[in-house]
């Protein structure tokens, strides 16, 4: 099914995008729905974007549910391991 569910947030950072060029990302969206490319009926999809530069300014991820959960856990571990005084911004 198309779940229609989309969760969004603003973000601050950079991503390497179309044409191999870095760009500033300002927005993120996450949704569990049909992928475009991944070989699964549904995936956890993440878009990191700069909408001011048009729809093509986007990094797209399509991860199976278990892969997405492992990535979340991995990110959490990396953040937890970093000293609080370094977490600025």
């Amino acid at each position, binding site marked *: 099914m*198309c*779940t*229609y*569910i989309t969760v969004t947030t603003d973000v601050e950072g950079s991503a390497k995008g179309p044409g191999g060029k870095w760009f500033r990302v300002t927005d993120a969206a996450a949704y569990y729905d*049909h992928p475009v490319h991944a070989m699964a009926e549904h995936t956890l999809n993440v878009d990191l974007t700069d909408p001011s530069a048009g*729809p093509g300014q*986007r990094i797209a991820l399509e991860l199976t549910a278990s892969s997405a959960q492992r990535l979340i856990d991995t990110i959490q571990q990396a953040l937890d391991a970093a000293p609080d005084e370094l977490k600025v911004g």
Partner: protein
Amino acid sequence: MNMSDSLHATTVHLTGTDGADIEAYLATPDGEERRGGVVVIHHLPGYDRATKEMVRRFAELGYDALCPNLYSRQAPGADPSDAAAAVRAAGGIPDEQLVADVETAAAHLRGLPRSNGKVGVIGHCSGGRHAVLAACHADLDAVVDCYGAFVTGTPAADYPLNVTNLVPLLPQLRAPLLGLFGKNDKFPSQDHVAELDEILTAGGKPHTFFSYDDAGHAFFSVDRPSYSVKAANDGWERIETFFADHLGA
């Protein structure tokens, strides 16, 4: 029926009821015979190659077929997946806009030189819901819903959806409906399909449903793991028969 399989496919531009420029993909059979038209509604992932292949298939079957890019306003000219992501992040497209764009597409088809005046609509997945939605408002002669979720069924209260079901609109359904579903699908489930069947039967609305064993959601999608050759082949045959019955000259 198209007597040859020669066809012409191209991009056209429509003007929406709000004045917006709407890109659309048009495929027409070569030949002089009068024919019906088919509006193909693309799925949530956008105005993509797989949808355009379906448009060409309808021309090969003998129909003028047209797929409006529902994301033309928000992301003109963008890659389909980028457009879908942008529209999704912005909250999707309103139902009213969908209905208006289908009406615009249907009018374009009826204005083509060999139109017989009849126009059907078909959609898959989110497009299945959209097809039924359009047929509750627009002047259409046949509608095909391929596993559209939330035609019936009520999402859980904590489910963050931007869509509502179409139950309140179903008394307005103005065209015969062919519904094609997979028995392993959860949205729409067989309970959702049964609910739709009951509502349409009670309302005296002509409809024919088929639910396939060993098929889930998106069984027509040739480029996805959900593809089911058995269900898709049978489904295409039923679509051919249905449109021939309702859109024929």
